[in-house]
């Protein structure tokens, strides 16, 4: 294990289009994920974070959506060129996903134990009894109390937190190398959220599973992420280590998002907001997609800025970064 292991997932210039909209709905998304790492993709509704995840899982609703460019290499294989049958084996096996609303992603008519065992039988070819034992083991690993009894219960008999645990158990039952979690705690209460985050953290540490976590909550990001990608309107606005994003935020959108959050520190000052709202996905603007809401906008923003590395591993798609220099220049020009 001395030679650096190859990355689990490399995504390059992912582009997704919807119908015949002139501009792509997800544009130029790239990232690399190593074993044991957690990448948080953060952004607001409509920023393309869930679509990116669905595209990787081969679950895009197509039509109207289609993957129109870029590639995604998972353990050396291109996910977008994989034959259907291979993808079926990979999905749910080496690569799994959990969703926001566990009630609607579990089969209401199947017992919890049966749902987990089904995927184990399918992917590992285990027999009925062995699969059942594996299901029990998984329920115990996600710390569901009285796991033996829960095996024989239906999803509606479980609380929201328990259901999310069962989803995690199912996703991890085949020891995946990559787990994608789309807003896994958004529907949960804060004390239950803390339990689930804690569980996901310790499970990914134990197993070395790479984790992509999609969230809108910067608190969750700070807590979970090794790497962060801040997405806005289908593009990555800023990417870097969690430390870089929180301690040295560069993109005006990142700054706006952070200053929009009410502080737990007791400041009663008026929130510094981002004006306006996100562009429509079928009518994405040309040029910088944040320009219409950006207080630093200028003529050059009519052209889309490419990602620029501002320090090692920290890239920003903004002509103005670092902002303090840009502001001083503007002031000098005016004077």
């Amino acid at each position, binding site marked *: 294990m001395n030679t650096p292991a190859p990355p689990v997932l490399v995504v390059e210039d992912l582009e997704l289009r919807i119908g015949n909209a002139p501009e792509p709905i997800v544009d130029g998304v790239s990232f690399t994920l190593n074993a044991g790492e957690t990448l948080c993709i953060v952004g607001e509704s409509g920023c393309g974070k869930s679509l990116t995840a669905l595209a990787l899982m081969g679950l895009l609703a197509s039509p109207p959506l289609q993957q129109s460019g870029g590639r995604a290499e998972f353990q050396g294989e291109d996910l977008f060129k994989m034959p259907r049958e291979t993808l079926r084996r990979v999905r749910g096996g080496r690569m799994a996903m959990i969703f926001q609303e566990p009630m609607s992603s579990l089969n209401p008519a199947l017992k919890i134990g049966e749902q987990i065992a089904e995927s184990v039988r399918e992917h590992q070819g285990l027999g009925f009894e062995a699969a059942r034992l594996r299901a029990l083991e998984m329920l115990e690993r996600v710390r569901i109390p009285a796991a033996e009894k829960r095996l024989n219960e239906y999803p509606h008999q479980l609380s929201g937190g328990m259901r999310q645990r069962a989803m995690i158990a199912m996703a991890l039952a085949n020891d995946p190398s990559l787990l994608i979690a789309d807003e896994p705690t958004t529907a949960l209460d804060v004390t239950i959220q*803390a339990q689930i985050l804690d569980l996901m953290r310790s499970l990914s540490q134990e197993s070395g599973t790479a984790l992509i976590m999609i969230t809108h909550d910067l608190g969750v990001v700070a807590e979970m992420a090794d790497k962060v990608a801040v997405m806005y309107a289908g593009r990555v606005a800023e990417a870097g280590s969690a430390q870089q994003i*929180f301690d040295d935020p560069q993109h005006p959108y990142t700054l706006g998002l952070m200053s929009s959050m009410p502080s737990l520190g007791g400041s009663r000052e008026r929130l510094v907001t981002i004006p306006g709202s996100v562009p429509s996905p079928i009518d994405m603007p040309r040029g910088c997609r944040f320009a219409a809401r950006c207080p630093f906008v200028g003529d050059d923003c009519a052209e889309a800025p490419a990602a620029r590395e501002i320090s090692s591993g920290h890239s920003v798609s903004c002509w103005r970064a670092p902002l303090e220099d840009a502001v001083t220049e503007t002031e000098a020009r005016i004077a």
Partner: protein
Amino acid sequence: MSHTPILQARGLKRHFVTKAPFFGDPTVVRAVDGVDLTIGEGETFAIVGESGCGKSTLARLLVRLIEPSEGQVAYQGNDIGDLSEQALRDLRAELQFIFQDPFSSLNPRMTVGALIEEPLRTHGIGTLEARSTAVARILTRVGLRPEHADRYPHEFSGGQRQRIGIARALVSGPKVVIGDEPVSALDVSIQAQVINILEDLRDAFGLTLIVIAHDLAVIRHMSDRVAVMYLGKIVEVSPTDALFRSPAHPYTEALLEAIPIPTVGARKAHVAIEGDLPNPIAPPSGCRFHTRCPYAIDTCRTEEPVLRDLGDGHQAACHFAGDLTLKRIKPGDLRRTPAAARRFDVYSAARARTDPAKTQHSSSREEKPHAYR
């Protein structure tokens, strides 16, 4: 803060009874189970708790949108329980409600203008002309344009619909506005815009605002006082700063410990309490929190604690209130690096330059919208 009380609840209870089954007794959910509250005029009062704690039921009881099983609510000293339907309807012009979901709370077949005008029409306020002026005016105040009155709700985004909901609540010139999770369905940047609008209008019209929320950051930002609810009861009530500085109930500590903090390397959100909320049909004996409380002793299993005064308006319903040293969010956990702080300054300065609306609502209180009544 000394306020004259505007809304008071005494021994308020609401029990929901299911339809009687074929055998046995019907089940009873004690959604709100004995709440005493005094809300002062002009203050912003927050009610916080997790799903199923009864906070929305309490909000609806406070304006008699549902009838209490027991107890009274008094508005400006008068019991609203005895009011006739007509009198209650008249009162509602002064007690308004903002709902959580801007997609299901607006009638899709009515234009925005008609929706906002409806409360004025219902209460017989103003002439037709005065009403349409009022609609145009309130639309501007919530950051929309008067010409939006002719459009339908589906033409608006979630944030804009919530602004419409706010306009509808405020157009009749209420004294008290209750928001049931008014910003929790919104994205962060839109949430911030709506919080600012709510605060501006509260200050401009001198409203008493009651905010139901589960997001402690929103509560910390907006409210003067907070009540923490657990399984139908208030377990702690306190001025907001004091609650965050020195929580007195273990459940409040658990809530504070569980919030993820947006600072890398700050304390990790801590699993302070295991397990789920107990079934509200059969709440635990004694202290309702004892099944999840790390400090519980035998007394807690048998004796129910009552709200005890800890001074300065801080009360907690715990046998050990004031004796336990509970954890809180330390200011150090929320630190920003100098580099980040400088960049946020650059951003706010740029926003202040490009957003003249920011200073538009000055501190002077304006006439209330119902001045043309």
